[in-house]
């Protein structure tokens, strides 16, 4: 049975809970802020761990030797830590991936945004999302057991592990990203502009290249830059299909190692903490982090600075 209260008691009762509510209302934003700050702590954590160990690395290996050294031989008495073989490996795999992903991704975006009917768009976009949702390890398996043998039957000099095959597969993996980001940029161009050009007698192709793409260029370029960043940071495909030879070469038929694949190799090999090999891990990761961060900042800058507002 609930106790009957007179009006004064009820007000008192209400005040008590009000006080509690009031304090609670003040605490809640602070708790939420603390939660939100975890994401900043993550960045701080990444930066500080990388920085501390990288500084330790540069105490053992001179800065210039690292960035200009063409030889990477992390084990043995005459160990050498030149990062250039890893940089060229990363650069070449990224370039191959972009040669595949940028034209095909952009043309896909043009088709879906400018040519396809609503129904086709609604069936194709989810299918492309499936392509984007497949784990990278599956692409690695595909590159190693299907694309490499296929390419070897066409290109005779291709080695069993090479940079070409993972580069191509990485490009395929990135197509949906370029396509969907560029498509978003193109779809947000107002249709009045298309209709205006159409009324002046332009064909769809002319509308696309003279009206839509120039108007959406900031989003399109940003999608390319993000794609580059994604390719630089991609790990499993290149680790599996490109092997671990630290060749300093530009020959795509050879095995090369990327920065990411080097990190996998070294952490898999139980590098004793404190050794130069162990620190080199962080120096390479720092280089990788800086490269991708620069790309991401460029993408953000491009999409903000060159955005056309309608």
């Amino acid at each position, binding site marked *: 049975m609930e106790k009957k209260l007179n009006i004064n008691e009820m007000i008192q009762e209400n005040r008590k809970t009000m006080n509690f509510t009031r304090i609670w209302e003040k605490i809640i934003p602070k708790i939420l802020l603390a*939660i939100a700050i975890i994401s900043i702590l993550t960045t701080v954590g990444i930066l500080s761990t990388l920085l501390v160990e990288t500084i330790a690395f540069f105490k053992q290996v001179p800065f210039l030797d690292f960035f200009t050294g063409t030889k990477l031989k992390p084990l043995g008495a005459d160990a050498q830590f030149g990062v250039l073989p890893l940089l060229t490996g990363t650069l070449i795999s990224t370039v191959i991936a972009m040669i595949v992903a940028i034209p095909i991704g952009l043309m896909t975006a043009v*088709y879906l945004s400018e*040519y396809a009917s609503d129904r086709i768009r609604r069936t194709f976009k989810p299918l492309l999302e499936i392509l984007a949702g497949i*784990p*990278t390890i599956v692409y690695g398996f595909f590159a190693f057991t299907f694309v490499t043998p296929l390419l070897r039957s066409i290109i005779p000099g291709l080695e069993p592990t090479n940079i070409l095959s993972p580069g191509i597969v990485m490009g395929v993996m990135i197509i949906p990203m370029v396509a969907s980001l560029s498509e978003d940029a193109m779809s947000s161009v107002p249709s009045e502009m298309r209709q205006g050009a159409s009324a002046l007698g332009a064909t769809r192709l002319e509308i696309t290249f003279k009206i839509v793409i120039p108007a959406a260029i900031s989003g399109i370029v940003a999608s390319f830059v993000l794609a580059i960043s994604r390719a630089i*940071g991609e790990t499993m495909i290149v*680790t599996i299909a490109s092997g671990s030879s630290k060749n300093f070469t530009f020959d795509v038929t050879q095995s090369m190692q990327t920065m990411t694949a080097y990190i996998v190799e070294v952490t898999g090999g139980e590098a004793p903490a404190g050794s130069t090999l162990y620190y080199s891990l962080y120096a390479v990761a720092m280089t990788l982090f800086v490269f991708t961060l620069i790309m991401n900042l460029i993408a953000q800058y491009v999409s903000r600075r060159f955005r056309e507002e309608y």
Partner: protein
Amino acid sequence: MKYVDTAQVQKRMNLRLTTNKLAKSLFFLSTMFGLIVLVVLIYRVFSQGIQWIDLQFLTGKLSTFAENAGVMGPLLGSFWLMLVVAPLTMFLGVGTAIYLEEYAKKGRIPSFIQTNIANLAGVPSIVFGLLGLTVFVKGFSLGNVVLAGGLTMSLLVLPIVVVASQESIRAVPQYLREASYGMGATKWQTVKNVVLPASLPGILTGVILSLSRAIGETAPLVVLGIPALLIPFPDSIFDKFTVMPLQIYYWTIDSALTKEYANLAAGAIVVLLMLLFLMNSIAIIIRNKYQRRL
């Protein structure tokens, strides 16, 4: 007076129309290219892996002998990992999203947090692995157990949940909030009783998508130093573990020496893809079921 030279226009007209048609087919073929690769990939993996999938493969322990190997260990590892990642990312992700959308819309701190999240989303996953190795595995001396892997993965997928939750919270109509205030509810009561229930489907979709990213991700866990052949099953979050993608990785690189391992890898990929398909279907069902309500 004539403004347009009709003859000139007529002469170029055919060329322009043909180019347009050719371009259209080229664009269509480009679109098909991605899909054809998708079909080839799935056909290739299924045709190689499906005959390996039987009860023994699904429930057996890992083994060096291809015929005896089963994926129960990695499957359990993936489930344990999700058990850590799901509550943690939901708590952190939704908390951050509520803060950014409801409590601090403008100002320097929220915009800094927002930029930071955008940048975190672009950090390569392997760098998160190094963070996990340095902080969780070595710093907290957890060792390469489920908890260390789960914490690493949670930070990796956090941006996905934050962004999905933010979009979902932003989509809750303003009049619902105003009605709640009108009834005398406080800000937190409004958030808890009105905004969160209304945005829950979007949040859940984001959480499931982030989970499917987490169980498909290999690179951060490779870095944590998980052994290639871990036979005991994990029983708690403090046990050593391995996961499906990691096992696929080890089998794939070992297939250069032992051919049958490639089939094992294919079989494991089929299981992993089925799992991902199931999770994404649940996400789509949730989205479709609750989208109509608002």
